[in-house]
């Protein structure tokens, strides 16, 4: 079940329908930066991402009368954004494969196989080199701005489909159903893409922590 719009969102929708500029500005401030970040992962450049965001807002304005409140306003706005971005990516000749399990078989498992015991051991497939608890590290290490840079750089290295899913889920906090609807992908594809992305982000953090 998707969340219904909050009372504040209903107020903003009514104000926007009445042509209230401050409602528009508030929405742009709240969602604009995230929209730009997500759009950037679909298209080739920052400039094109800005055009996508602009086009999406025109779509929001033109469609606001048709907003029925069956999802939250944020979910609805991001659905317009992702559709706009997908169309633009296709026009740019960048198709982002969500429907197929893209890359399946090409990529090794998320955790290096040599961290597990081999078939010749007594416990094949069990940890040979288990992860070390991060709590043992000084807390400032985890809280440092540098840690967030590690994540940001790693997201930039992910294939676009994984980057988009993990950004929507873990950076923006959308739930699985929102992401499935916005990207028009199956539950399994959503989960596999999220899994690969999270696995790589954890590994990047582990390398940084050591």
């Amino acid at each position, binding site marked *: 079940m998707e969340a219904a719009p909050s009372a504040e969102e209903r107020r903003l929708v009514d104000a*926007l*329908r*009445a*042509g209230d*500029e401050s409602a*528009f*500005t508030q929405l*742009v*401030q709240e969602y*604009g*930066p*995230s929209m*730009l*970040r997500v759009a950037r992962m679909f298209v080739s450049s920052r400039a094109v991402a*800005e055009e996508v*965001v*602009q086009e999406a*807002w*025109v779509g929001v*304005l*033109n469609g606001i*009368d048709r907003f029925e409140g069956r999802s939250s306003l944020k979910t609805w706005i991001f659905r317009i954004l992702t559709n706009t971005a997908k169309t633009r990516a296709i026009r740019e000749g960048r198709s982002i494969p969500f429907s197929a399990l893209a890359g399946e078989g090409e990529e090794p*498992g*998320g*955790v290096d*196989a040599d961290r*597990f015991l081999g078939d010749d051991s007594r*416990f*094949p*497939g*069990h*940890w040979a080199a*288990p*992860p*070390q*608890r*991060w709590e043992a590290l000084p807390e400032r290490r*985890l809280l440092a701005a540098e*840690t*967030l840079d590690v*994540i*940001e750089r790693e*997201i930039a290295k992910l294939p676009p489909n994984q980057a988009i899913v*993990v950004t929507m889920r*873990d*950076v923006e*906090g959308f739930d*699985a159903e929102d992401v499935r609807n916005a990207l028009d992908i199956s*539950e399994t594809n959503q*989960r596999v893409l*999220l*899994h690969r992305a*999270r*696995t790589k*982000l*954890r590994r990047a*953090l*582990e390398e940084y922590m050591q």
Partner: protein
Amino acid sequence: MRLDRELPCIEVVELVTAYLEDALSVADRQRVEEHFVFCDGCTTYLEQIRQTIVLTGRMEPEDIPPALQEKLLAAFHDWTPA
């Protein structure tokens, strides 16, 4: 998804997202949880995935550049509510 042998760690780490998304069958969920009970390595791994999610959620997006903000406002002014 049906898992029929005792789970080795190399398989558990591939199930953590399905576990966190509550996408496992009741029986498989139980087997994964039983594994966590005796396996410190996988418990730490799961905890690190949770910490990764929390840290990823702390990233702040950049502000909208002023030029784009102006364009958006211009688009708003061009728009006439129905």
